[in-house]
């Protein structure tokens, strides 16, 4: 009897120590690894941003030489996009999708582990390029040829690391789709599914559609570099602008890959703290799907200055503006969810509300950028930098932080330090605006992006922006301290955690047992 019990324990519990993390196929363990990895990359990418803003603190070159500055901007972007934001959303998907749909685990657990370690290895490879002769890639994360072909020894490693990231993302996406399509608990019809899972289902299709395109584009760079093909070389009959078209055909859906899961998170949090179900659920699902569809036909708005036919420019202006319609629907529905609700302002809600305001602000600058003649002025200036940082930092990143504050008691079984969380929120929310708002002014006044030094008329707002960056960066140390504290201990969390929990994840105890829903739950 006792033998049987201990055998059972062995089958159900994880192995101890490092072996657990190398061999686990448990969705919660893998989710944790993705989240920790993402946090580490957030710090590395943040460190690069810190150096960029330190160099731009005042005119003149003080810290970095121009070539290293370009490596910093390039690596900051690659790491934040592929190393911080995307893995964080994958980590949340791993943890929460099975628990939201009443499945025991992800459908393909071994592939799940493989895709994580592939990603970790990809970033080891990418970061190792700093040690190569010629340094890390310095052509911007957009890797435009011919400039990218001037990269030194780092070039093949950077390309290979992108291939690995892509493979990892595709596997992750396949896993999400197979899980959601096959493993929903009986009665969990698609239109009963929580919006976070919905947002990830659609994101997964986007990933499968565009990551191979990106892989193809960088492979063409590789053959241009090593095998003297001329895909992007005009002297051999190619076209450098072709790369931009292919890149942005991937790149625009990519920005939605980073924001749709954030939409899903916010759609979970606002109802909980308004104590009322989401307004217009079907419209929310339909809006995500429309945004995903439209994301495939707007790519050239990133390249209005390359010299496109008039009709092309008009088409991409209009299709881009169309995205504002479903996005508007989402913002209005979130607002109406709060309407006649009973609102309280715990840390997840604070971050979700900051998202609501500041993402919308980023949406407005996006709308302005869509209008071609005005874009001729905005293009490649700090106005663009301000725009995409507004949608990505107080947009995606704030939503990810909201998700951590929302689900962490479920993960750890402990409540976190609410006072510390509120300090983290207010400092982040204030400094993120000090950091990015002045960049609108800089761009409009004529400061190009990706320059290590600038004319003295841009000095003042750059200094303000840098002060905001230092404040924002340091505030994140509070976040890490809070997470460490919460993992180590704290007041025990109840199963429901919040006042008005909704969804299956709140029906299991906190911390969530190593295996949940081994028997499918009943859905009413």
């Amino acid at each position, binding site marked *: 009897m006792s033998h049987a019990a201990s055998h059972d324990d062995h089958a159900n519990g994880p192995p101890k120590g490092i072996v657990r993390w190398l061999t686990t196929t448990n969705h919660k363990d893998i989710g944790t690894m993705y989240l920790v990895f993402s946090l580490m990359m957030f710090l590395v990418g943040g460190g690069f941003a810190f150096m960029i803003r330190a160099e731009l603190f005042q005119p003149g070159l003080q810290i970095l030489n121009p070539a290293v500055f370009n490596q910093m901007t390039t690596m900051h972007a690659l790491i934040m996009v592929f190393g911080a934001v995307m893995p964080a959303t994958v980590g949340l998907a791993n943890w929460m999708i099975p628990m939201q749909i009443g499945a025991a685990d992800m459908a393909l657990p071994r592939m799940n582990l493989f895709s994580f370690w592939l990603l970790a290895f990809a970033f080891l490879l990418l970061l190792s390029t700093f040690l190569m002769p010629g340094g890390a890639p310095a052509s911007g994360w957009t890797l435009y040829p011919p400039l990218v072909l001037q990269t030194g020894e780092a070039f093949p490693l950077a390309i290979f690391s992108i291939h690995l990231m892509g493979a990892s993302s595709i596997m992750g996406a396949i896993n999400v789709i197979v899980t959601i399509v096959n493993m929903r608990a009986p009665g969990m019809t698609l239109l009963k599914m929580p919006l976070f899972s919905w947002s990830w289902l659609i994101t997964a299709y986007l990933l499968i559609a565009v990551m191979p395109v990106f892989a193809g584009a960088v492979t063409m760079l590789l053959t241009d570099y090593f095998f003297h093909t001329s895909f992007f070389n005009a002297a051999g009959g190619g076209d450098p602008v072709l790369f931009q078209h292919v890149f942005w055909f991937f790149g625009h859906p990519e920005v939605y890959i980073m924001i749709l899961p954030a939409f899903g998170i916010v759609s979970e949090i606002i109802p909980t703290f308004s104590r009322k179900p989401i307004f217009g659920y079907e419209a929310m699902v339909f809006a995500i799907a429309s945004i995903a569809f439209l994301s495939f036909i707007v790519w050239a708005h990133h390249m209005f200055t390359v010299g496109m036919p008039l009709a092309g420019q008009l088409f991409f202006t209009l299709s881009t503006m169309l995205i504002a319609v479903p996005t508007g629907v989402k913002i209005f529905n979130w*607002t109406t969810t709060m309407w006649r609700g009973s609102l309280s302002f715990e840390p997840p809600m604070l971050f979700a509300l900051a998202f609501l305001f500041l993402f919308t602000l980023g949406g407005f600058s996006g709308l302005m950028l869509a209008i071609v003649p005005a874009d001729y002025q905005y293009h490649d200036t700090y106005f663009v930098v301000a725009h995409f940082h507004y949608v990505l930092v107080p947009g995606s990143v704030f939503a990810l932080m909201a998700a951590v504050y929302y689900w962490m008691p479920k993960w750890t079984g402990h409540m976190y330090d609410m006072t510390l969380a509120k300090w983290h929120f207010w400092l982040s929310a204030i400094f993120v605006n000090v950091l990015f708002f002045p960049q609108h002014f800089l761009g409009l006044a004529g400061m190009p992006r990706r320059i290590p030094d600038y004319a003295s008329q841009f000095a003042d707002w750059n200094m303000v922006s840098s002060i905001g960056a230092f404040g924002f960066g340091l505030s994140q140390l509070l976040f890490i301290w809070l997470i460490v504290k919460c993992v180590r201990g704290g007041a025990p969390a109840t199963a429901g955690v919040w006042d008005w929990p909704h969804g299956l994840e709140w029906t299991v105890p906190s911390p969530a047992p190593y295996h949940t829903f081994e028997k499918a739950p009943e859905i009413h």
Partner: protein
Amino acid sequence: MRIVNRFLKRSVVAGAAAMLASLPARADWGAINMPRGVSELSHDIYDIHMTMFWICFAIAVVTFGAMIVAMVRFRKSKGAVADQKLLHNARLEATWTLIPVVILIGMAIPSVDKLIKIEDTSGSGLTVKVTGHQWYWQYEYLGTGVSFYSRLARTSDVARQKGSGIDPRTVENYLLEVDKPLMVPTGVKIRLLLTANDVIHAWWVPDFGMKRDAIPGFINEMWISVDADKPGTYRGQCAELCGADHGFMPIVVVAKPKAEFEAWLEEQKTAAAPALAATE
């Protein structure tokens, strides 16, 4: 102890006040918007930009207003009870889908004829070929034999070196000065043919409103003009990342009345002629 505290507090306040007071003296805090510029196109673009800005501002007042009202009125701490039945409202949802469509079309239409004008390079009085190099510009006045390079001015180039010990604020037009500027006549439509020798660059002077990529192996077109009553010096920079010294290849354009420009061009032609003869 208390006196020390008070003293510290006072000096911090006084210091902060002094800093704030000194700011406007040395600053361009006012440079927060797009310049209206000195050309027909830059005026058009500025107008579109401001229209867009005010439309967005109005939408922001309405949406942010609704969010703030909801956050203030429906607080649990003030006893608000959730209305669990507010789940759908087909009419409302249709309204806020359709109204944005109308607004967006309204936003896009005025820019169409402006764009058609921008793309029409016909009827120009002067054509200049602009070639981007890592990291300087080359200007050729087509059909005249006049051609020259335009590089970052020596004063800026010395000051911008790491550890130069020169405060950039003491350098006149730091990073926005060249050895030989592009000369253009005022009141004339000038066609620019853009290309590059190595990687992609972009030619941009904010006061002219336009920016376009210079792509190796291809020729792009755009036109600029300077209002007849606005001769002067206008400055810009390369706007497409082109390598280490991307930040150090400024553009300076000097616009002169037509007669003065023609005189300058004649002078350049004579200067260029012996050189041409030698190469033949």
